[in-house]
């Protein structure tokens, strides 16, 4: 535990990123609820401000180091040796950035679609932003849990208050699933603290726990992360929540929230319980493959736009966990990259659906048709994201999936083959969807829709840029994570030649 605080070495980037939205939300509370425009602009300003605030993370990040950077540490609850400790490494830095971007886009996409309880809506969004960044930046388990759980409340309200017709059911389901998982994680956290006497994650990553305890803790944390990801048996909340949530809610859920689970695996399960993770990796791989195939097949029979994309998330997150638990350099980097990709792509898709829903007020695929002629710009955007989702070379989806399948193949050939099948199924349902919605004869229900506005283009444009940026130059992003992932692998397979080789490779690259 670090008792002395040395502010000179500390930057305050992360704390700013966490606090700025929260303070902005607090400020919003004081504003008259009728002044919608003011509220919107303040929310936008806050989120853009936050985006600017996190830029140093991107520019000043030391890519060669596997250590935590931008660390800040203050004493908080000394009785339990809890510190306020935040910092980022190669794994989390990208998610902090992504969170800031997505939050801004959410403010933009809700500009006109939210008409009821506007003030509360933006307060919720800003709270979520703060908590999201907090989750990715926290280096103290207690703090992590605080942020992890604190996200639940605004998210629950977001789904329940501004959601679709079946929102109550979806909100409660979402809340209870995630709460169940996370309370088990809480017990895990408590157990770790009691065994080791610290909540400090960096220290815990360097602590060797007995194997039995590792197994126990692995499953405790698994409960929380698997629900969030969501992995195969506990994924049922996701379609409901995604479908019923408002556009912004769906985007946050798809882009950030479900990444937290996978992030948790990387941050807790692998480094803290390496032996248990290795022992359990086959099981995880099996679950991942089931999720990939199962998610894909379910997608084929979906009639609801959002539901389809939601199930595709199950499939895609299967890829991510497959990558992570293939426990090699390619798989893991692919998994992390795919998390970003999925955040971008699915976020974009949900944004698109939100935009079109705002106009047509229907999500039935059957109600659409020939949208390409009605909304050409929109359909162009949508096409790009569809291709990215399928994993067409040149888009970011390709890079991620390719690395994962490579990693999976290295780890387990069958898994690699089955995962590849998943890609094909993905192509089938996405293309079917695109054809149904955009190319068959114009459905009269959507005949008179106007194309997307400038604001909406601005909303989608950053994601479009990201799609191609990652697609063409993945190194810009994988570069962030190389060192960290390599050191993680060293820890996992410490002493093995294999790991050493990958490390050398990484350094050489």
């Amino acid at each position, binding site marked *: 535990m670090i008792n002395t605080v040395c502010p000179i070495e500390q930057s305050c980037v992360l704390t700013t990123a966490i606090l700025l939205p929260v303070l902005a939300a607090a400020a919003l509370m004081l504003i008259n*609820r009728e002044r919608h425009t003011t509220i919107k602009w303040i929310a936008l300003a806050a989120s853009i401000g936050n985006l600017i605030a996190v830029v140093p993370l991107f520019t000043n990040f030391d890519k060669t180091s596997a250590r935590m950077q931008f660390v800040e540490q203050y004493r908080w609850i000394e009785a339990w040796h809890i510190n306020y400790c935040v910092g980022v490494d190669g794994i989390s830095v990208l998610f902090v950035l992504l969170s800031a971007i997505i939050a801004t886009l959410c403010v933009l996409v809700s500009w006109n679609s939210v008409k009821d309880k506007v003030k509360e809506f933006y307060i919720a969004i800003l709270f979520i932003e703060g908590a999201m960044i907090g989750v990715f930046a926290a280096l103290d388990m207690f703090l992590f849990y605080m942020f992890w759980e604190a996200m639940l409340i605004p998210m629950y309200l977001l789904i329940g208050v501004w959601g679709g017709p079946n929102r109550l059911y979806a909100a409660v389901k979402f809340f209870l699933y995630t709460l169940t998982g996370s309370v088990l994680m809480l017990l895990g956290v408590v*157990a770790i603290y009691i065994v080791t006497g610290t909540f400090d994650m960096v220290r815990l990553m360097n602590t060797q726990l007995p194997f039995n305890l590792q197994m126990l803790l692995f499953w405790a944390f698994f409960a929380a992360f698997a629900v969030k990801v969501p992995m195969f048996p506990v994924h049922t909340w996701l379609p409901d929540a995604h479908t019923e949530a408002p556009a912004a809610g769906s985007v946050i859920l798809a882009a950030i929230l479900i990444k937290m689970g996978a992030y948790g695996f990387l941050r807790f399960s692998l480094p803290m319980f390496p032996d248990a993770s290795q022992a359990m990796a086959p099981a995880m791989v099996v679950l991942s493959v089931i999720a990939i195939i199962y998610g894909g097949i379910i997608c084929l029979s979906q009639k609801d736009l959002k539901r389809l994309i939601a199930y595709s998330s199950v499939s895609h997150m299967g890829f991510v966990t497959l990558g992570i638990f293939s426990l090699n350099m390619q798989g893991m980097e692919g998994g992390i990259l795919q998390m970003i990709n999925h955040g971008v792509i699915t976020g974009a898709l949900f944004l698109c659906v939100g935009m079109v829903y705002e106009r047509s007020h229907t999500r039935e695929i059957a109600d659409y048709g020939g949208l390409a002629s009605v909304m050409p710009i929109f359909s162009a955007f949508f096409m790009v994201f569809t291709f990215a989702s399928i994993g067409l070379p040149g888009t970011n989806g390709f890079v991620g999936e390719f690395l994962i399948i490579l990693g999976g193949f290295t780890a387990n050939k069958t898994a690699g083959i089955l995962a590849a099948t998943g890609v094909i199924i993905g192509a089938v349902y996405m293309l079917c969807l695109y054809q149904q919605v955009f190319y068959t004869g114009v459905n009269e229900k959507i005949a008179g829709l106007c194309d997307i506005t400038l604001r909406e283009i601005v909303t989608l444009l950053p994601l479009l840029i990201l799609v191609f940026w990652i697609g063409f130059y993945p190194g810009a992003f994988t570069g962030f994570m190389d060192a960290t992932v390599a050191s993680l692998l060293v820890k996992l397979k410490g002493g093995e030649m294999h790991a050493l080789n990958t490390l050398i490779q990484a350094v050489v690259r």
Partner: protein
Amino acid sequence: MQISELSPLLKLLPEMIVASLGLVLLMVDAFVKRKEVVAGLALAGALAAFFSLKFGDFGVVFGGMFISDGYSVFFKLIFFINLILSIMISGRYLKDENSLHGEYYCLLVFSTLGMMVMASAGNLITLYLGLELMALSTYVLAGFVRHDTKSTEAAVKYFLTGGFSTALLLYGISLLYGVTGSMDLRTIAAYIAQHGVSGNPMALLSLVLLSCAFAFKIAAVPFHMWVPDVYEGAPTPVTAFMSIGPKAAGFAVLGRVFLYALSNMSVEWSLILSVLSILTMCVGNVMALVQTNIKRMLAYSSVAHAGYALIGIVAATPEGLSATMNYLFIYTFMNIGAFSVVLMLHTKDFKALEISDYAGLGKTHPILGAAMLVFMFSLTGIPPMAGFIGKFYVFMSAVRSGYLWLAILAVIFSVISAFFYLRVVMYMYMKEPQRPGMELTSSHAIGAALAVCATFVLLIGVMPERFVEFAKAAVKMLYFQ
């Protein structure tokens, strides 16, 4: 009389202030027509007693009958907070119910005095009398709105079960007295430490009886039957008062008797209490699921919370004890907060006691809705509300004592509890208002109480350090150690 003779009385300072407050209130009530004056006086006196805790002295007086130590001071703090907040939220309700008599405040004060005596009891006789002082006042308070048959019914039920539990307590005391030959807790502890009573069936029987009696007071299953009816029927401010005071006092004696006088029998009572704790959480949470009346729901929730707080006692360590104390401290704020929201919705014409009456509250009264939201999430135990800190500490102490399975059950039940707490939130925010222009019964006092509760719930949730340390220190300063 010299000063030296007075100095032991300094240890009784809060008690003396509270006792004289009660008597003064009685006199003032006889001559003053405006009952607001009585309320104000009661509030001022309670605050004075609250601050007198600072000047009180630690030590033992009356030959071990009365112990003033950190432990008792902590509980007295809870009692005073409870008293102050209860006084603040009562006036308006009683006025609306045409039952604003000065005796109400007097009884509140005496009930609090009984709790204080319980918390400070160093002898089973003192404990019993303190308990009776508290209980008798509370019976009357429960039936205070005389023209309301529900209130009367609640009082009768409370009285009958209370009398029964007292008999159990007495039998337990008598057996313990027989086994150890003393009523003094310290002597009992010394006797047990010296001679050991593990094989003595009478000691075991007395342990069971005492557990049952205390379980009645803290409303643990299967001795909770009275809780829902009494909480629903009693006047709402009284419900708020007695959902905390008697419960905390019950925990105070539970801690003092079990952890110190009977600490050598911790294996036996841990087993009994762990079973009680599981049952309590289970029944409390599950039954709360099906309630439609908010007071009844909060009653079952209060049962469930007794189960969580019991976990700390089951752990049978100083840490567990301080966890329980911390839990109760936090529970005080969140529960009184929730009840004051319930109170504000209660108007002369419309009682608003069904959960469905809360529909649209978030829209019509955003601040009140937000406050209720905070309390509900805090009761569920979601960070960053205080309820999370309470549960966290309790679970931690349980896991440290090897009760991982208990903690697992507890978290599962706390997930179940989310169902019914969320339902209130759901009605408030996700349903449209049923009645146009929901009216509120508000006064400055209730508003202030609500603000205090909400502030503390959030404050403890984010900065628990000070409060946790306080509970720890209180246990450290426990007289017997």
